[in-house]
């Protein structure tokens, strides 16, 4: 079955455009994987898997369509059926239930009008709390029907009607939530920071902080700033997994789970930190340890890296590549993260050596046998300045360049002295020119006063002075 789906026009087209198609079966079980999530993210995650994995596409889409039909978002339902149709046209679920869609559309319209008129009535009454709740209801409604832009606006309109600090935090949390759903990472970051600033140091903070950190980490990761992301993920307290809903949202179900935190945090740390940092801040961190226990292979990969078993580390990660590519948030960043871990491993691996043969390197780092030749990869790393080494293409060796600190210091000193010398000369030349009254001036002034003739400005002034002196 998998092969026929791989040959579906949808995947063929993607392949032609050189877009990502995940052929390998992932390690997770779809049912249990998706059971971790709730709400809209379920649909989105299933859709993501449907779009990328030729192995799971049909199953995922079927689940998604069934799920969508229970919701109120007819648009996503239609697009899911279309996607399924392009992959497996004969599937019974691939033909959309138009009647249902129309019904839902009408019901939504009705509900929207109802909510809007309610809000209008509240506005006429000028009761702040009612207006706030009206806006909130409208926001919830928009979110449910998948109109994220309007949901964001409605939530945002709550701001001026918030009367307590809790209202304000709830609203900002909602905004963060919607921004994440919109994949508006900068917005999510700024709102999460706002929550952080609003919440005082009290019980409330204990509840909110893990969520804020998780959201910040997520948005940093999606913006490709892995070091910041790692820092935020590592700060997430383990209470995150069991925390109550914040502002009516169960972040650990509707955005990212504890498992996700372990994977994201672990990978980001691996991509951005050196060995001692990994040891101290990731492996020995009691808080993050609890997350890592959820995903033991990440823990294994990090310990392998720390104990210099780079090929083991890369191997573990490689095994899970398909899984991560199918993750809605991690997917786009996986290639970059893996590349960074890989280059870092190579640099770390080479550090203690003065000379390594290229064949040895390729044995260690080209486990899959895919990709380009190791020397090309090394060349690009050296050119980019990541790896300080030279390649001997004749003996097929990677050589650490000889350093001669004394020589470098001497030649640097000489260079610096020369440049100082030159600067001083330029200044003295300029000073001499000024002293001699030499200055480049506009041609007009030049013609009138013939100033370039050595006496210059000073001379003119003196003559002027003499004239005045004679006058008085």
């Amino acid at each position, binding site marked *: 079955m998998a092969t026929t789906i791989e040959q579906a026009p949808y995947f063929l087209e993607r392949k032609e455009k050189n877009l990502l198609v995940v052929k390998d079966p992932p390690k997770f079980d779809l049912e249990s994987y998706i059971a971790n999530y709730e709400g809209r993210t379920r649909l989105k995650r299933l859709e993501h898997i449907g779009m990328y994995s030729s192995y799971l596409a049909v199953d995922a889409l079927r689940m998604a369509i069934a799920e969508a039909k229970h919701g109120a978002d007819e648009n996503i339902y239609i697009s899911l059926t279309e996607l399924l149709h392009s992959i497996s046209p004969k599937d019974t679920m691939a033909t959309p239930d138009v009647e249902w869609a129309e019904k839902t559309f009408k019901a939504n319209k009705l509900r929207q009008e109802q909510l809007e008129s309610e809000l209008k009535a509240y506005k006429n009454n000028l009761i702040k709390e009612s207006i706030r709740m009206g806006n909130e209801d409208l926001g919830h409604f928009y979110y449910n029907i998948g109109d994220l832009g309007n949901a964001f606006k409605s939530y945002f309109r709550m701001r001026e009607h918030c009367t307590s600090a809790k209202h304000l935090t709830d609203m900002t949390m909602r905004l963060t939530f919607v921004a994440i759903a919109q994949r508006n990472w900068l917005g999510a970051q700024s709102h999460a920071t706002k929550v952080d600033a609003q919440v005082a140091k009290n019980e409330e903070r204990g509840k909110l902080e893990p969520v804020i950190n998780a959201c910040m980490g997520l948005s940093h990761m999606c913006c490709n700033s892995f070091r910041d992301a790692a820092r935020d993920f590592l700060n997430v307290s383990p209470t995150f997994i069991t925390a109550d809903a914040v502002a009516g949202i169960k972040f650990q179900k509707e955005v990212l789970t504890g498992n996700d935190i372990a994977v994201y945090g672990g990978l980001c740390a691996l991509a951005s930190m050196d060995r001692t940092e990994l040891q101290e801040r990731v492996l020995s961190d009691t808080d993050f340890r609890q997350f890592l226990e959820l995903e033991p292979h990440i823990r294994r990969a990090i310990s392998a890296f720390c104990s210099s078993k780079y090929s083991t580390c890369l191997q573990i990660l490689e095994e899970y590549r398909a899984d991560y590519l199918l993750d809605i948030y991690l997917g786009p960043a996986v290639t970059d993260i893996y590349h960074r871990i890989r280059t870092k491993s190579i640099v770390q691996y080479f550090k203690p050596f003065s000379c390594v043969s290229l064949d040895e390197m390729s044995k260690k780092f080209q486990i899959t046998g895919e990709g380009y030749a190791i020397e090309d990869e090394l060349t690009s790393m050296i050119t980019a300045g990541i790896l300080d080494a030279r390649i001997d293409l004749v003996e097929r060796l990677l050589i650490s360049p000889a350093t001669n600190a004394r020589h470098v210091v001497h030649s640097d000193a*000489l260079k610096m*002295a020369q440049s100082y010398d030159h600067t001083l000369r330029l200044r003295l030349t300029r000073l001499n*020119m000024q002293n*001699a009254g030499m*200055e*480049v001036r506009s041609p007009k002034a030049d013609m009138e006063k013939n100033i370039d003739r050595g006496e210059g400005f000073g001379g003119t002034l003196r003559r002027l002075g003499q004239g005045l002196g004679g006058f008085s």
Partner: protein
Amino acid sequence: MADSLSICFSFEPTSPNIKSNLDLDRHIRSHVAAVSHIPSSAFLKNIDTPQDFLEILNPSVNSIPYAYTLLHRIQTHDWPKGPKSVPDTFRPGGGSWGKLVEFLESFDPVQMRYIGDVWRRLVEYCDRVARAMGTPGIAISPVRSAMLQLDPSTGTFTSNHLLFMRTCLEAGSYTAALPILDNYIYNLPQNIAKALIEIEGSVPCAETSTSSDFITTRSGHSEKITLADLHEYYMLGAIAYIGARKFKQALLFLEHILITPSANIANGIMWEAYKKWVILGCLVNGAPSATPKTANSSAMKQLRAASKAYDALTEAFQMHGPKLRAQAEVGVQTWAEDGNTGLVSELVDHQMRLAVIKLKDTYSAIPLTHVAKFLGFSMQEAEAYIRNLVARGYLNASLDHTPGPNGSLVLRFYTDPTEGPLAKSEKEQYLELLQQTAQTNKLAEQVKAADYRLSLNKDYLEHVRRLNKKAAASAAAGDAMDVTWDDAEPEEDIMGDLIM
């Protein structure tokens, strides 16, 4: 005749009567006065006989009368305009020409400090003759040695500098100009007040490390210097450096033009200099160099706006691709008009050279076949090209044969800076550092001298006077917190400062 001769011999620089510099100064001055009063007929007698003044006098001892003799001989003829107006005896190979050259190469520098105008006349004549004869090259050596003899540092700019540069470029002898060019111009002839010299008690004949003391606007060693002269000298100097393929020095030389004080405006020479400077920056550093901090920023802006074509060129140069060649071809007309065709083609060559040089950052050894493929050359061409680069000192590398029966050629880079053809031992480095230290110390001396001269500048003295006045006034006011104003100085005399 005898009288004149005895006058000529009346001065002996090493005579035991001269005990101090002041004595020497007095002697020389009276000697100059006496010699200058000898009628010109005395100098013109007995030409080409053993009684000829030029035969009797020793140019390195009796320099003053010797110079006057030559001057009078020259003045009997017209200033040469073409080959025909050069008198036979002054033609290269002629008797007087030989004497002139001998004099310029062996005169006593201390005596020549006193008769700057005569000395300059002789230098100019030598130069003029060579040019009029259409062989400017023959003047280079005598003029250069005359300049170096008078002032071993040649650091005070004179009109002779410019004359010399023009001659060198006309003759196409770029390397011949280097001894003068390598000396930094640390001083322009200044107008030092007579009163000041008297106060200082310094005399031109005193032993001094800087020539600013004896080459002044009054000494006659130079014509009046204008900014245009100075610019021209720097420009010609840079061209000579380029001709000698010393790009770094040329780059630094041009910066002297760019930092000219300016009323927010640039002139034509600065523009020319800027265009060359941009290309040279790429040739030397691989990227346009940073503008000198002291340059006038709005002038630089104007220059940049006027030289867009060159900016495009350097951009293409940094991009490493065929774009540079295309840019260079498109702008052929522009480069030709600006006289930069040679530099541009050098830039194109250098791009490829740089690409090869950069290989050393990646490889320690690479088969020549790879290099040939990389350059798009055949093996023979690649080998010749690489050998050339190594020989010219661009690469610290060697071409070796791999051992074995069918060994191929391998380009091997030396990663250790103390190995390979360009290696520098620590001792060499140490010597270089010492040399640099000496140079910097010398420069510090020159700066000190300049600073001293500036502190005697009229404007500066005025400024100090005002400062003192202000300080005194504020000190007086600070005592009693004087709030009244009518018993202070009646009125500041604005005009008073100007009348001097």
